[in-house]
């Protein structure tokens, strides 16, 4: 069983929800990221999504765009993102790491070249924002052959037919984008999310993590009550951005926020 499948199974067995932070690799500096990942694990996260900076992040709002720009200014790349994951793995063999980014850096490495490198880095999942299932067969196959989970996005306007398609081609978990918009947008509607999740559940047995628009412990709790996991990105990166000259301060604030989210999510299983 893949590390992701095992993680979600263990969570489900104990009635808990996955807390999944997203940070951009190399932001604000490549030396920062591995330490940040370990600190987040200590704060109680279950899976880490590691963003690969890209020059043209069309699905991202301003906060993650700027994180990308900061990381690229330090020559961060997909290869170096895998190096960071590898470094993290040296002292953590439990926490699944999902690499999330855009297709062109993967194309530049070739699918096989990337899949081999991802396997060497002991990556657990790959989420490629601009690779829909229709174009993803070859890539998904090369990941699955190496026991890496290809993770797909679902959106509020995805039809049943498409949800089935993601269920077929995806593994690990599905990532439900809670709103029509870019990352960091602020108009998440929990009733809509709940209704859509019912539709999604009818068409897949994969765990569903929900992201986009989760900002604090309260939204995390609301969303955690609906899905199997909660993804939080821009709210964390805003902390990095607020303390560019003092990354330790940013790290502390991120740990603090994740800790309150962990408590909020765990209060769901207690009640």
């Amino acid at each position: 069983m893949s590390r992701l499948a095992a993680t979600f199974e263990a969570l489900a067995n104990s009635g808990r929800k996955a807390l999944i932070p997203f940070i951009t690799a190399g932001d604000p500096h490549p030396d920062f990221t591995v330490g940040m990942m370990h600190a987040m694990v200590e704060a109680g996260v279950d899976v880490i999504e590691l963003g690969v900076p890209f020059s043209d992040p069309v699905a991202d709002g301003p906060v993650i765009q700027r994180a990308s720009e900061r990381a690229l200014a330090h020559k961060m790349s997909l290869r170096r993102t895998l190096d960071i994951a590898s470094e993290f793995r040296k002292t953590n063999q439990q926490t699944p790491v999902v690499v999330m980014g855009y297709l062109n850096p993967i194309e530049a490495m070739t699918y096989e070249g990337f899949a081999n490198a991802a396997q060497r880095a002991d990556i657990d999942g790959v989420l490629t924002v601009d690779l829909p299932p229709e174009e993803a067969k070859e890539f998904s196959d090369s990941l699955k052959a190496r026991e890496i989970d290809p993770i797909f996005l679902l959106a509020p306007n995805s039809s049943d037919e498409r949800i089935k398609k993601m269920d077929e081609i995806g593994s690990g978990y599905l990532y439900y984008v809670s709103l029509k918009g870019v990352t960091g947008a602020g108009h998440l509607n929990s009733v809509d999310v709940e209704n859509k999740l019912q539709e999604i559940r009818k068409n897949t047995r994969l765990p569903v993590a929900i992201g986009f628009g989760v900002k604090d412990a309260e939204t995390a709790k609301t969303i955690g009550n609906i899905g199997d996991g909660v993804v939080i990105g821009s709210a964390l990166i805003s902390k990095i951005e607020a303390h560019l000259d003092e990354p330790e301060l940013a790290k502390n604030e991120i740990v603090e926020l994740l800790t309150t989210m962990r408590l909020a999510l765990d209060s769901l299983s207690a009640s």
Partner: protein
Amino acid sequence: MTEKYNMPDERGHFGPYGGIFVAETLIPPVQELDAAYQRYMNDPEFIAEMDADLQHYVGRPSPLYHAERWSNELGGAQIYLKREDLNHTGSHKINNTIGQALLAKRMGKTRIIAETGAGQHGVATATIAARLGLECVVYMGSVDVARQSLNVYRMKLLGATVVAVESGSKTLKDALNEALRDWVTNVDNTFYIIGTVAGPHPYPAMVRDFQAIIGREARQQCLDQTGRLPDALVACVGGGSNAIGLFHPFIDDASVKMYGVEAAGDGIETGRHSAPLSAGRPGVLHGNRTYLMSDDDGEIIETHSISAGLDYPGVGPEHAWLKDTGRAEYPNITDNEALEGFHALTLMEGIIPALESSHAMAYTMKLAPTMRKDQIIIVNLSGRGDKDMQTMARREGIEL
């Protein structure tokens, strides 16, 4: 060629190029657009409305003009200019915006967005939005806002909101990024009018089909005026819409050579250019697979061209296919050569071309002398140069 050219396939592939590479939220609107496009392109009423607009509003057909003096001066092939500069709003861009805006209306969309580089597509979009009473937002890199300020003013007069994009290289590709972000946020009421043969399927095929009127007219006009087909076609390539519009109706005419001219900026060898077909590699950007200016890590490289409309790191996927199959050739022209083309046409024929089109003129100056006097080149004069007066004056140290 015995089999008729029939690209793309139903999922938008030109061989390995094209396709649909967008985030999930954009899949339903892209599919909805494809369905509407398939339906209305076969709807006689839609076609009639579009044709009427192209005739009475745009002023089509545009002339095919024999540039006799220039041809004689160059001493080779006879040069014919397809006068897209004479269209309403001053370039070929309006052929496409009319088609897409009428489609938007049929689909019940009330808000139109567009990206623009030189501002010609932005102006053409703002124009048709004004005429149809649709809300219009145009994204434009802040570098382009500065160098094409006349067009920014035109768009504002036409009632459009112009958003200066400050991210990345602050040029056309960043304007496209921002328009895609707007679209994903406002998919329900918004129609994205892409200005070139880029983006996810069906855009490359749809924009081509709207622009192919250039080639259909030119083919017939050439037959009418000279009794034969041309020997060569020349057009500049930014995203590639004016070029594919001219080329497409000739693809099955094997004797007709096609030259798509890319912008070499300071020169290909300097790395400061906008010539993905000449010096790029295949990759994925803005919804399709094509040749791109991208580095070993797959990051998109900043481009350079004197002309804002060619300052783009990608190119329409059909051009990638025509290059690989050898059906078309893609030479390149530097900024300085383009300026020579600009002045030559202005002085020889009394026609001031856009800086984009000047790249096609400059290549024609190289090509024509290598051909016989009884041979024919059709050059796409994709736009007029009014918008570039400030850039030209500044280069020559003149304050306007």
